[in-house]
């Protein structure tokens, strides 16, 4: 089993509901975030294209943050999710520097924090908080090893991209384009 998130950039309106949902679900202090929305504008007026993306940890198969962690606090958990054990983290920041997506931040309490795909919610059979609140339903979550899931269907039928493929991290957050 491998968890993946598929985000439809054609449906996203950039409202940042995912960000607020994550902050309140995971008690992320104000001023920090585990997910965020980016906007890129291409072309010149009137032929302008706008792409909005909700970004977060890509839970990479080949995660540089796990490899560089000196204490083993950063680790791979069930379903390919990258987690940080706060008690084992010494706050050295190597993982923050190694992440090509800038997906980690240092919590005011000293440890490094990041998106967990809401692992505590997955155990209860619920979707991650960001996916469950999205008002345009542009986010999908599921197992991409299982060809019958919605995420597998979407990746089989739609054009998609991943972020920073050149980094060789094999990310698990896909963007439909």
């Amino acid at each position, binding site marked *: 089993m491998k968890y993946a998130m598929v985000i439809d950039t054609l449906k996203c*309106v*950039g*409202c*940042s509901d995912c*960000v*607020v949902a994550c*902050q*309140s679900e995971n008690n992320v202090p*104000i*001023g920090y975030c585990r997910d965020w929305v980016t906007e890129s*504008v291409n*072309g*010149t*007026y*009137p032929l*302008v294209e*706008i792409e909005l993306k909700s970004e977060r940890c890509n839970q990479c198969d080949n995660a540089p943050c796990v490899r560089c962690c000196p204490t083993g606090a950063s680790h791979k958990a069930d379903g390919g999710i990258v987690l940080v054990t706060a008690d084992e983290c010494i706050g050295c920041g190597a993982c923050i520097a190694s992440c090509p997506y800038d997906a980690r931040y240092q919590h005011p309490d000293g440890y490094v924090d990041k998106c967990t795909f809401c692992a505590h919610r997955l155990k209860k059979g619920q979707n991650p908080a960001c996916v469950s609140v999205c008002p345009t339903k542009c986010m999908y979550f599921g197992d991409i090893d299982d060809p019958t899931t919605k995420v597998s269907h979407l990746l089989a039928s739609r054009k998609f991209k991943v972020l920073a493929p050149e980094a060789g991290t094999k990310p698990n957050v896909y963007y439909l384009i």
Partner: protein
Amino acid sequence: MTKEIGSRLDLQAYFVYKDFEEVIAWQLNEMGSSLEEMKKIGVKNFKRKSGPLYLKKDEAYEFATNSGKIEFYSEELANLGLDPMPVYTSHESPEQGFYRLNYGRSPMHTFSRTINNPNLSDLTNENTLWVNPKVARIEGLKNGQSVWLENQDGIISSFSINVRVTERIRWDSVYMYHGFGHDNKKLSRAHGKGVSDTELISNIKVDPLMGGTGMRGNFVKILIDNPTKEVLL
């Protein structure tokens, strides 16, 4: 609870019931049902008194117009001296140095009422003035630069607004989010952040036919220097 508050404010006269169940029972009685019945069945359908809701297929129907049909050309409007068919009227264009003030909503906020919410103000706590790169070049504006705005009637914005140079806006217009630029100091996170579009909207167009209002017929000039500075010194 409302009844209790009411009676403590000496308004007992308006709360002539024991509890709200009594009110609901009375309402249901008036409608031709009863609380006991509704507790049992939950939903009750009444016959429509004003006829069927939808037209049947091929049913002859008269609309409430002179011809009894849907009118594209309205004699009634012509008799009133109005355009019987909509005629395109060109909108006013801004004068040299002015830009049309367009406004819209920030997707994070609900009008101005969520403006002081800690989470949402963390995402967006002020609005920006969107200008096309061509306009930025002409006016000598840089991204993030603070500017003030003056509208066609000489009204100057209370606060400054930061410029956002973007291709997402046309070159004869500027754009900002609505709901920012509050001057209430009790809005600790929102006070003085950005410019309020409403204070610059002094020209409200009213459609003589429908009464619809148009508030995007205002033009603003971009002031690079603080217009209140001289007064303060």
